[in-house]
């Protein structure tokens, strides 16, 4: 059982999910010219983006790299 690979895969997906949420918040905030749009982008979107990037960097430095068995279609 490759627990390192599974752990990597989990943090990899979590990192991707955080980034997708952050990017969606950024895209939505750009439709609105208002101080709250800036706050949403900077505070909420920025937090998700930073968390996603940091989690990705953490997972490639400290965890196992994925193999072909890590595909979501295969799990």
């Amino acid at each position, binding site marked *: 059982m490759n627990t390192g690979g599974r752990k990597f895969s989990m943090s*990899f997906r979590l990192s991707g999910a955080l*980034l997708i949420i952050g990017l969606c918040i*950024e895209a939505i905030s*750009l439709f609105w010219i208002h*101080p709250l749009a800036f*706050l949403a982008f900077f505070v909420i979107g920025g937090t998700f*983006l930073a968390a996603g990037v940091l989690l990705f960097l953490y997972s490639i430095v400290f965890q196992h790299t994925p193999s072909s068995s890590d595909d*979501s279609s295969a799990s």
Partner: protein
Amino acid sequence: MPGPLAILFVLLGTTIVLLVVIIARASLTATPAGKILAFLAFCALPILCGFWGLNEHLERSKQTAFCLSCHIMEPYGRSLYAGDPMYIPAAHFENHRIPADEACYTCHTDYAMYGTIRVKLHGLRHIYVQYFGTPMQPIHLYDPYNNRECLHCHAGARSFENDTHMALLDQIKANQLSCVSSGCHDTIHNATSIDKVKIWRPQE
């Protein structure tokens, strides 16, 4: 040619699609090319999108519509359309002496070194006070209006170089004599009484 905002949206969409593809097919990252792709999708592109988005938001914060989107600024926005030419902001805005879409920023920015950063920090303070504190009533500037902001455009202008201005130039430059509060050009926004003034309606 698409504008920077359209390119940013394309970049955001592309990054999201790449992320979804790599999450669904993690085995793509087993190859060196896949690792580079993952680095782009999970690190380089989101950081690029983040900084580009931040720049876009900072540029938008210069817009007149941005400043006037807060309820407390409504009378100041109306004062830009005052029919009385003695109203200094209205005279500048209505005659396009300043860019109409960046009217507030043009006069209320700080033209000193690092002034833009100082103004952005003031902007963050405005947001904090608006949503988490109690705005002062009536609102006023944190510091007295600096003549430097007027002289940024007017210094050297033919209309400015009259006998009165030239005689007082040293005092004006040193802020010993304020352009707006020394009795010379002192009809500014007058937001509390703007409802009593005839409002100019631009013809389309």
